[in-house]
């Protein structure tokens, strides 16, 4: 198999360029002083001299085209600017937070993919029967749960009442776990956020899988497989599942974007130190440069998820391979 066509790569590059350029224009289009947006300072409290100093520091005195080039240059060097509020390099802050968000989003996505696919497959196999219908009803109810409510419920039951899991943070503060103990500590902290995100993702995976399975189960080649004398299990795993998985992959890519965005709420509820929490902090502190940078990271994450789905498609379906 060859990687996806040149044309597709260009398409992703084009979207990336447009998204990054929009990110440059955003603070300059918003009402008010771009100085406040880019330097994150209370302009009203500053003396003219201080303003001039800051304007020069963030390059706002240069012509727009120069600013645009500078902006691109810094993006390509992964230099996302400086947070005046926390007085740190933003890229450094993001690199600190990103792994935690990836841990809970990718973790929950993996679990929900497995559970959703298995349950969806089972449901399709038992289509119309009691087990299928009760699963279906359950999933639809689950889908309508608000994420913050579920998170708080889990905290109150498993952290407060049972005391099994910690209710905030990613690691126990001031602890000096090492090796497995450290990993165990991380896992303990990650479980509740992952469960919350997982529970919210499962219904979508389940419904997509169930529908795709039913679609495939009705197709002619399944009848052929049965006519060969294949057992029901063989039909299901040998013929249906592989054909039904492609729409699920697409769904997971979309879901990844959702989970990334949804992390703002989840990480706030669990006080989890990921990107979502960083956004929350930036918004409440009006730290505009940090917000701008995190938006950029979100954009890239969504693009990457779609790229991965595009790369997986031809592996799953030979008809999609570029001839």
């Amino acid at each position, binding site marked *: 198999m060859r990687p996806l066509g040149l044309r597709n790569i260009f398409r992703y590059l084009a979207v990336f360029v447009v998204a990054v350029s929009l990110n440059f224009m955003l603070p300059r289009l918003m009402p008010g002083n771009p100085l406040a947006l880019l330097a994150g300072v209370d302009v009203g409290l500053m003396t003219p001299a201080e303003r001039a100093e800051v304007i020069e520091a963030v390059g706002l005195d240069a012509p727009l085209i120069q600013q645009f080039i500078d902006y691109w240059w810094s993006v390509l060097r992964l230099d996302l600017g400086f947070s005046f509020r926390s007085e740190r390099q933003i890229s450094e802050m993001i690199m600190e937070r990103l792994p935690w968000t990836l841990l809970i989003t990718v973790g929950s996505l993996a679990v929900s993919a497995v559970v959703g696919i298995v349950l969806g497959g089972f449901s399709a196999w038992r289509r119309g029967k009691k087990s299928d219908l009760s699963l279906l009803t359950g999933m639809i109810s689950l889908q309508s749960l608000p994420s913050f409510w579920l998170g708080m419920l889990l905290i109150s039951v498993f952290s407060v009442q049972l005391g099994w899991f910690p209710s905030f943070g990613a690691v126990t503060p001031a602890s000096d776990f090492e090796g497995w103990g450290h990993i165990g500590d991380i896992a303990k902290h990650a479980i509740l956020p992952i469960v919350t995100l997982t529970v919210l993702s499962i219904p979508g995976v389940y419904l997509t899988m169930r529908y795709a399975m039913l679609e495939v189960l009705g197709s002619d080649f399944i009848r*052929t497989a049965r006519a060969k004398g294949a057992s029901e299990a063989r039909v299901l795993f040998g013929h249906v599942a592989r054909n039904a998985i492609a729409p699920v992959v697409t769904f997971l890519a979309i879901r990844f974007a959702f989970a990334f965005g949804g992390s703002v709420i989840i990480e706030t509820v669990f006080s989890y130190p990921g990107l979502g929490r960083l956004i929350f902090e930036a918004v409440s502190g009006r730290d505009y440069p940090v917000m701008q940078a995190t938006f950029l990271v979100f954009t890239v994450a969504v693009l990457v998820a779609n790229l991965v789905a595009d790369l997986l498609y031809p592996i799953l379906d030979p008809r999609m391979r570029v001839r």
Partner: protein
Amino acid sequence: MRFDTPGREIRAVNGIDVNVGAGEVFALVGESGSGKSVSMLSVMGLVPTPPAVVTGSILFDGLELVGLGRSKMNAIRGGEIGMVFQDPMSSLNPVHRIGRQIAEVLHLHQKISRRDAMDQAGELLDKVGIPNAGGRLKDYPHEFSGGMRQRVMIAIALACGPRLLIADEPTTALDVTVQRQIVTLVQQLQADLGMAVIWITHDLGVVAEIADRVAVMYGGRIVETGNAADLYRTATHPYTSGLLHSIPRTDTIRTEWLPEIPGTPVQLVDDLLSCPFHSRCPMGDDSCVASLPTLEASGREGQFSACVHHASILDGGDLWPSLDREVTAAVEHGDELLVSIEGLKVHFPVERGGRARRKAVVLAVDGVDLELRRGRTLGIVGESGCGKSTLGRALVGLVEATDGRVLIKGEPLDTSSGPHRRTVQMIFQDPFSSMNPGMRVGDVVAEPMRVHNIGSADERSERVAKLLGQVGIPAEAATRHPHEFSGGQRQRIAIARALAANPEVIVCDEPVSALDVSVQAQIVNLLHETQLETGVSLIFIAHDLAVVRHISHEVAVMYLGQVVERAPRDDIYETPLHPYTKALLAAVPVPDPSSSIALAPPLEGDLPDPSDPPTGCRFHTRCPVAVIGLCDEIIPELRVVDTDRWVACHLVEASTDQSFLAGEGDIRGDLGLLAEQGG
């Protein structure tokens, strides 16, 4: 065997008894909804139960299959009974390699190593006539043509040496030339392996060629059964004889009107208390309604008919006379030149992608010249992919011409919308998807008038009622929705819609191929009647050569985007000149087992890639008489060889009184070479 399948209150099969002997070829004939497929699927246990309920008994070599346990049934399926399905495009798993799909059935029924199974899969592919079999095991289904996929299906069905092969409409989705290949293949394999074959079809032509014995199904029941030869000679059920008379044929004298079976096939909901065919039957009377006729010995030995009147049918009552229809108001029309197509080309770019970024172009229509006069019908035939449908679309302006032009009454046609589009209307193949399901029938028919601002609202609805009456649909139907009508009725509505704009030309793209055989004659007659009454010109595009023969005044044969032969109807069917026309005609199965026409060997191979047509004569790669050095190098022009006859073949000699294909008569010396198998 008896089945009773009340799935959603539909009695698909209502008590049928069939027995098939070892090594026998048995054909089950019927229209859609007759229960022929369902009954044989239940032999394989492939009818989902529930919702279906199968009762009665199915014995396979003494083993009761009804209610047989799952694992025992799995041993029968694919092992003892192989099955081939209708649509080869969708019957193979798209994500598995061909080799694996054949090997799977071997693994399921035999203890066999992976390597041995793969070797055997290669041998099977070779046996079903796939070139370079071993090398193609690693290919996926989408890399095969329809005919080749059906060969793969046959390889799968025969892999474990079954004693019975059930073929469910195996050639319906294929071109006649490929159908001929598949029929020949199954005949050969059947003779070699000695298995029994149950061939399910609606095509009486194929049955005549392949079957020893036949059963005809209608409304979930067998209405007639017997030896194939007897059944075709003296049918003893009105339905059988109606089918045999109403299908147009290429080998008999053409009558102006086809005998037609009125009405539409039944969909059975209740218990049968009377003959399901009585309302459509010319012999139907009170005795038919009073009781349900059962199969009784009729005619020759082994022939049975479920008709209370079977004795009088045998007495030779002429049940289905050809119609002598009075045309109410045949219009006088001149023979003005209405449509002329000049050097028309329609090319579609296709994305091939990949490293080379090669832009392939499908030459769907590649230089076609045709003309059509008022009140005449031009038939266009060819295999699927020959460009006939694209040509039709270009004539209506649905696709843009790449080069050349279409002149309607001397005015060039373009694809922009406007009043000039009124003169050419179209009837599409699929009456189910070519009508907006949300619109009422009256609005469907009135739409062309609205588009072209013809008449006031009142005038329009008046005209809709008149048009519906003209095509045999009650005027009350105007307020109903398309889904409430059968396929044949919808095609009538489509004809009314086409007529609404008062067109001068109607392009009919396969207008009867999606319809049941008993309904096709009605639509063909209706089109003919419409033409006589309105003087409209028709362009009739079809793959069915018999239907085209029936309705056309002139016929053009297309191959890979080009017209290879064009002639008046009788000339082309009686003395075809181009080798391709001959091959097409020879491939059409004749519904008569005693037909004396010697079967020509099937045309080999598939249609070449239309984006990369062969050099010289495009047909030379499949032509049985191609002369190397001539046909593969020089492009033959479409030239006049006789009065109104055009042929694009180097080997056809023109003479003043008779044209002939080189190889049949004496050949001019300058051709030098002569393929021996010619003629």
